């Protein structure tokens, strides 16, 4: 595999890529550069256009307009079998009439390579399936089939490897295992991996760059931590993890900090963490960034923290953390995760509580559209 790392891998460029099915744009004017050698995740709900994007890169779908290039080489007009791109299909699509060896050798043989044994055996070693070479795909478990699919694609040394929901069919435990496995393989071969998934956790664990897609467009692009910590849209805030959102209006701008009034409560949002251009600001905070206190402990709230009062309506103990569902004065429900650091000492249903958090975790999003509608849309898309 050593020389593969030395190979000149180039960036994948998508420019103004559009795909229309009838009047509906599945992919809408997408421009994106995927750096060579990166593990890139296209994250989104089903129907957001991520799979269509992938299929266009693979050459299995013709774009309505736009351009696809690897480095300087335009591949838009090339047919699937002419592209230096290979795919790991969602259903694996292993050829049932061929054994594992022949499945892996398929691409090499089609390109007229006569001596395939060394390469195939090396690839089967890489995915730890060498003893299975003469089995048929149906004789393998889901995880093994998955690795054959990866081997069958990778053996062709593609410039880009596309993975279409590759772990969707596996159970949770196996999925975790395969996530680590795929990352190992990617590090070892250094090929650009483009990974399509609807599982935000999977995307965050594996990818070094995530593009969150919605309605054919990219909502936000970045490394997992920065997207999670600082979402730029309501969709991202709700799709990637959970968020508590409060729609409000900017009332004052202090140095480095704005004040937003929502439902009669004043929130502080760092200017650097606000992406709302106007006065309509949606204040957002991740549930695990919040702390729950009993009302009498009010003085424990550090000065300058945002704080809210509410009543606990549900408590669920989830081992690592406890999840509180808290109803605020204006009827909105918020979610708070509290780490189970201390045994006992939990609020219970019916308690009046105080919830507070540091402004530095707070983010501001563009308002305008009704919060509920976008939230509902995000939830419907996400689950």
């Amino acid at each position, binding site marked *: 595999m050593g020389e593969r790392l030395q190979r000149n891998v180039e960036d994948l460029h998508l420019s103004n890529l559009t795909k229309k099915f009838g009047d509906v744009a599945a992919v809408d004017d997408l421009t994106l550069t995927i750096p060579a050698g990166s593990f890139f995740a296209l994250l989104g709900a089903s129907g957001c256009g991520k799979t269509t994007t992938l299929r266009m890169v*693979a*050459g*299995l779908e013709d774009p309505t307009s736009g351009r696809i290039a690897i480095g300087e080489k335009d591949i838009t007009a090339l*047919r*699937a*079998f*002419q592209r230096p*791109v*290979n*795919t790991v*299909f*969602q*259903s694996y*699509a*292993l*050829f*049932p*009439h061929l054994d594992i060896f022949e499945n892996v050798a*398929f*691409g090499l043989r*089609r*390109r007229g390579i006569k001596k395939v044994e060394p390469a195939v055996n090396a690839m089967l070693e890489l995915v730890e399936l060498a003893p299975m070479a003469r*089995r*048929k795909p*149906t*004789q*393998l*478990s889901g*995880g093994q089939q998955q690795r054959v699919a990866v081997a*069958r*694609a990778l053996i*062709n040394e593609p410039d880009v490897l596309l993975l279409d929901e590759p772990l969707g069919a596996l*159970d949770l*435990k*196996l999925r975790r295992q395969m996530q680590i496995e795929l990352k190992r393989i990617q590090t070892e071969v250094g090929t650009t991996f483009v990974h399509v998934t609807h599982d935000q956790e999977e995307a965050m664990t594996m990818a070094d760059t995530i593009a969150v897609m919605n309605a054919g467009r990219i909502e936000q692009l970045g490394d997992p931590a920065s997207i999670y910590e600082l979402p730029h849209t309501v969709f991202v805030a709700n799709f990637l993890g959970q968020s508590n959102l409060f729609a409000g209006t900017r009332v004052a701008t202090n140095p480095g900090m704005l004040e937003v009034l929502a439902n009669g409560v004043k929130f502080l949002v760092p200017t650097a963490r606000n992406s709302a251009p106007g006065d309509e600001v949606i204040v957002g905070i991740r549930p695990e960034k919040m702390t729950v206190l009993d009302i009498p402990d009010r003085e424990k709230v550090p000065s300058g923290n945002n704080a809210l009062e509410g009543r606990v309506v549900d408590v669920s103990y989830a081992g690592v953390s406890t999840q509180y569902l808290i109803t605020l004065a204006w009827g909105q429900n918020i979610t708070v995760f509290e780490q189970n650091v201390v045994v006992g000492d939990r609020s219970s249903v019916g308690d009046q509580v105080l919830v507070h958090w540091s402004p530095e975790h707070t983010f501001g999003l563009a308002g305008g559209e009704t919060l509920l509608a976008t939230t509902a849309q995000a939830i419907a898309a996400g689950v």
Partner: protein
Amino acid sequence: MRWIRRHFIGFIAILVLVYLFVPIAVVAVLSFNNPEGKYNTRWNEFSFDAWTNICGVPGVCDSFVISVRIGIISTLVATILGTMIAFGLVRYRFRGRSSTNLLIFLPMATPEVVMGASLLALFLNLRFPLGEMTIIIAHIMFTISFVVVTVKARLQGMDPGLEEAARDLYAGPGATFRFVTFPLVAPGIAGAALLGFSLSFDDFIISFFNAGTVVTFPIYIWGAAQRGIPVQVNALATLVFMIALAIVLITQLVGSRRRKMLEQEISRKSSSVDALVPKS
């Protein structure tokens, strides 16, 4: 009492299977008969004559050969034409899909006597001479629909992702068909051909209308029924039955042994995987 109730349906099922085979047993047993008169319907005495001298009666083996020939030719043509239609229906868009489907469905819903009569009406009107040619034309006609249905089912059951995977792996359209599509559809096509042959070989009604003076095996039997069916016919039919049954059983047996091996492997695999995964 409970035992009877639990096994009642199995008992009935076996009775029905036996019922299906009673007439065949009669045919087979009577092939060893030395009939008293000219009608071979009552057991008289054991005889091997029909088997040792299977072509002993004039016309029997000739008609048998004619039926085999007609069967092979019409199956070959119908399988090719039907397979093409199945591919067209599953893989391509075109106008007139519903009328195409209707034209494929109707021959299967038409009584043979109507098909035979209408085809004869055509040939008579065209003054087309009746003979082996007209029988083959008729057999191809009624076999096509069955081929289409069988191959279409196989094609539709195929994961289209497989062909995409082939294209993704540097197989052009020709290579995709040769290395992926065809090998996967082939069992369906073979099944369709076997079905087609058995339909053609056993067809009496449509053949009888359009045969002119040609005597196929079923037409021979029909004619002989009036003056007594020779024992040789029973022997030949029993032979055909045994060969066909053997072919099917062997393919089934090989298939099921392979399947069984797979199932064992998989169950072993999944149980070992299960062992790794803690029950939540």
